[in-house]
């Protein structure tokens, strides 16, 4: 009696937990499962929750589709350059904010926090017109700049936090030993910052990798300059009703983000949740 009662009382709780996990995971699972299911099973009248037979055909179709390699390269190029640019520029700003005292520091951080909440959905029209006027439409550097600006505020906020955790005495003593201030930062603080840089860049990477709106409206005529999200959104137009291939493409696109998040899970569930990130 005494051992079963808590278990019975916990039953609704555990049922709710199972339901939560199922609701969370089912769409992800269904995407992966469909990607591995042969077409005739996908289009059967009684679909099975666990695929009866497996195939890699859909992945072959997706990878072999026109432009997949090109769009993949575009996405990687734009994402990497945007995140690197944001890191370099944010590092300078974060250092100035965390380690120096100057007039306007509060105002600068206020600007950063406001920029973090920038209404990007409402800026598509002017950005489109400005790009058109400056002959930057259909060009990847335009996207790089936009993604740089999207990730910059968050990168500054997080790096400032990381630099703040490194005791300044470390650098000071290096300076006493004859290091320049820059040298002290590079040799002492930078290695300690590396994990922070990694984590920050991964979040920036995911933001830029997933971005759809600007990629969709700034790259119009030059189809060669499209990125993966735009390609994926038009995949059904390309492949018609080939849902297996669509799900395979979707899986390939989602995999990096899913892996990164699972690896960073501890950071995600603790500190980063408060940093107003939305994956």
């Amino acid at each position, binding site marked *: 009696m005494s051992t079963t009662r808590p278990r019975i009382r916990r039953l609704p709780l555990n049922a709710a937990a199972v339901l939560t996990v199922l609701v969370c995971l089912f769409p992800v699972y269904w995407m992966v499962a469909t990607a591995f299911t042969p077409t005739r099973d996908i289009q059967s009248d009684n679909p099975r929750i666990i695929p009866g037979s497996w195939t890699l055909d859909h992945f072959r179709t997706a990878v072999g589709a026109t432009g997949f390699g090109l769009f993949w390269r575009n996405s990687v190029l734009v994402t990497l350059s945007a995140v690197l640019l944001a890191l370099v520029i944010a590092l300078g700003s974060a250092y100035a904010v965390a380690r120096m005292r100057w007039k306007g520091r509060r105002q600068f951080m206020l600007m950063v926090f406001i920029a973090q909440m920038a209404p990007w*959905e409402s800026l598509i029209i002017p950005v489109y017109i400005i790009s058109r006027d400056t002959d930057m439409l259909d060009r990847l550097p335009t996207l790089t700049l936009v993604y740089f600006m999207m990730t910059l505020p968050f990168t500054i906020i997080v790096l400032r936090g990381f630099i703040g955790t490194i005791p300044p005495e470390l650098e000071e003593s290096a300076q006493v030993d004859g290091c320049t201030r820059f040298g002290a930062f590079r040799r002492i603080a930078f290695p300690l910052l590396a994990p922070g840089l990694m984590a920050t860049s991964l979040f920036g990477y995911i933001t830029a990798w997933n971005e759809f709106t600007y990629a969709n409206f700034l790259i119009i005529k030059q189809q060669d300059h499209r990125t993966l999200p735009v390609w994926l959104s038009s995949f059904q137009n390309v492949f018609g009703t080939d849902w297996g291939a669509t799900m395979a493409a979707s899986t390939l696109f989602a995999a990096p983000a899913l892996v990164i998040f699972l690896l960073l899970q501890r950071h995600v569930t603790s500190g980063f949740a408060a940093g107003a990130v939305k994956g």
Partner: protein
Amino acid sequence: MPAVREQTAPRPPLGTDPPRRSPAPGTSSPSKSSGRTVWPYLLIAPAVLGTLYLLVYPLIRAVVISLQDFGLRQLILGHAKFVGFKNYGTLLGDGHFWEVVRRTFLFMAINVVLIMTLSTLVALMVERLGRFGRTTVLSALVLTWAMPVISATTVFQWLFHSEFGIVNEVLTGLGFESFDRYPWFAHGPAAFAIVVALVVWQSVPFAAITLYSALTTVPVELYESARIDGASGPRIFRSVTFPMIRPIFLLVFSLEVIWTFKAFVQIWVMTNGGPGDATTILPVYAVQTALSHQRYDLGSAASMVTVVLMSGVLVFYFRQMFRQEDELA
């Protein structure tokens, strides 16, 4: 102490104060004041310039365009004429626009209420689970959170596919024969519901995880003494738990309100605002007006209305955040 050290050091090139979190008087030496004033500004210059050109300038440009007569002709030839608030007048006099505004608020209200209720329940549940259950649920939440918007949108289209979609199969299998080949995306309310489901599914993880981390900061003693006083479960939540997590709750709440407009992507990819305009919310309306109908002026005006609507919540969010942690100090 640091002042002495700085003077003995062989001329620090970025001659600034030794960093101190607390204001330490007497650390400055007047001889290096010029270096002190220049370096921080040089370091933040790229970030400030980037923000000015990529954020402030587009915003100003949007305001200017919304005050001009700006169509396809002006886009190509330039020379847009100022027309004052005529575009805003046109918008506010348009019944269709008001319908979109109403729908935006409806969409926002349904989403935010669902997200906040579900995520609070999930957070409370996670807190009560054992170690294994907690890790499992948190992992599932993180995985959902990580799902890229476009992937999630594609999957939901597939789940609700009329012919081979698993949802229709299951509903038909359960005896709801009317769902056999039910075309979800052809019916306004159904398409609206799917967009809501997708946005809620994607938003609950962040909110639940944040609320859960807030819950873990509530001291256990408070619960114990409340229970000794004979308080019931709901009563404890109302009088003990909620007041403690209220600041974070309000933060998440205002974020979710602001993020409603991010549903632009899901809507654009899934329904393009349709069927009819059953899923057209403000950002979708603005982009359609501007880029599909070449009325850049009206589109910008609609965008600016969106920004104004948002900024109220934004101010509330910032006040909450800065009260929460003295981030600017």
